[in-house]
């Protein structure tokens, strides 16, 4: 049955449809639906930022593709500001991870070694599986077995040795230094802005090297304008190189 309703009635029903109680239903740290929704958004963002690709993440550690830095810096800038605004207005509280200096340095070194070989971190391995990269399957199985290995054989014997060295506890920098956190945030934002500019300049430099000397493979394609394929292979005369060098310099600073 189709019934005619007034506009006010329609607005009322619309407000009922987008009711705040539907958000309340998925709120909380144990809600599975909340996790699923966040995961969907997380996966979409990871895929669109191309962080699920081996080529991009490995290109970062090979020092020839800084897409990860250019994605990562805005993440930190946006969320550090928003989180502290919401914390000050009392919308939510912080959940500070515990700092233990020595195991985090050791763990970070090992973790970096893992990323360098595997090319995925735990979140992007799940994303890469969704994207069709089947080598994420042994990666995920490996991560699960690594956790089991640690729990079975190492946790009990290491618990009271170096896993406690340099324990600071769940403190933040502004609690340790005992100053207002906005000073630190402004400083942090300035640092990140400079870092972003430096990374972008380095990217331009790499594009320049690639276009002039055929030095790197094209990983950061399509961000620049479409580069015509190299007509002459690899070995070019010195005069030609000098000509291209000057041409590219002119293009860059046009």
């Amino acid at each position, binding site marked *: 049955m189709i019934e005619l309703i007034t506009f006010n009635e329609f607005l009322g029903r619309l407000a009922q449809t987008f009711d705040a109680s539907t958000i309340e239903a998925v709120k909380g740290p144990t809600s599975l639906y909340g996790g699923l929704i966040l995961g969907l958004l997380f996966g979409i963002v990871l895929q669109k930022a191309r962080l699920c690709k081996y080529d991009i993440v*490995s290109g970062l550690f090979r020092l020839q593709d800084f897409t990860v830095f250019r994605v990562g810096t805005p993440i930190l800038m946006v969320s550090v500001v928003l989180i502290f605004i919401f914390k000050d207005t009392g919308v939510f509280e912080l959940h500070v991870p515990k700092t233990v200096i020595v195991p985090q340095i050791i763990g970070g070194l090992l973790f970096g070694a893992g990323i360098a070989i595997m090319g995925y971190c735990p979140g992007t391995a799940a994303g890469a599986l969704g994207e069709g990269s089947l080598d994420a399957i042994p990666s995920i199985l490996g991560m699960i077995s690594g956790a089991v290995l640690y729990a079975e054989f190492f946790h009990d014997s290491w618990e009271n040795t170096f896993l406690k060295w340099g324990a600071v506890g769940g403190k933040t920098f502004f609690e340790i230094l005992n100053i207002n956190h906005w000073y630190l945030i402004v400083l942090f934002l300035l640092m990140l802005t400079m870092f972003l500019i430096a990374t972008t300049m380095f990217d331009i430099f790499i594009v320049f090297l690639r276009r002039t000397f055929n030095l790197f493979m094209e990983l950061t394609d399509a961000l620049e304008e479409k580069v015509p394929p190299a007509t002459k292979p690899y070995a070019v005369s010195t005069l030609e190189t000098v000509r291209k060098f000057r041409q590219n310099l002119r293009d860059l600073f046009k």
Partner: protein
Amino acid sequence: MNVPMQPSVRLAMGALILAASAVISIVLKSGWPLMVVLAVMLVVRPRWWTVLILGFTFTVFLNSGWPLLGSLFFIATCKPKRWWPIPAGIAFGLVEVLSFYLSDRPVGITRGYTALGSMAEALIYPDHANKVSYWGIYEPVIDWTMALILGTTIGSFLSARYSGDFKLNTVPYLWSFSKGSSTARRWIWAFTAGVMMGFAARIAGGCVSGLLISGVIQLAPAGFIFMMSLWVGGVATTFLFYRSRVIAVRKD
């Protein structure tokens, strides 16, 4: 699979399957068969209208407007294969903040893998799993983090399929350039590196999303320490592991 079919035949088959699933749904008085068929339709033929139909069905099914809004948003933004890095980073940051607001915890993935390991051990060898003290922290129950992992996979799949970026491959391009195109070699190395990474994540107490990003955005020393050591370890290992093949030189 590659049988050429007339468009009209394909359309008729699709309509038939849809009608059959609708009839089954009505008979069973449950919406799930229709939902499954619509989801399969979205995967097989990722067009804007299939996304819209699925969103609309979820809106009716759950009696809430959010799925329709989400599908409209998906249609509007997810068609390009990639976003520019800075807008993508801003969206990522908004997801992080949303996680604090919605679920009252930062996004963290490795906890889910650890709990999966705990669950596997509890299934295979329950008597022994009860004695391991570490599984007291990571109990073998399905919780938020596993839903997060599942959601990440599904979201990435939908996004890749909708933009036409989905491609099954077993060896990444740059790896095949540096280490050869052997699938077994890549998979064994990936497994080894995975073991290393899971182990390291347990020592440090988190992964890139759970410790690095969430630590840095709350200005905790943990995130900064982990970030620096990860970077140093990654670059050093890359240069040791790939040796002379680190920089991929174009030789066309």
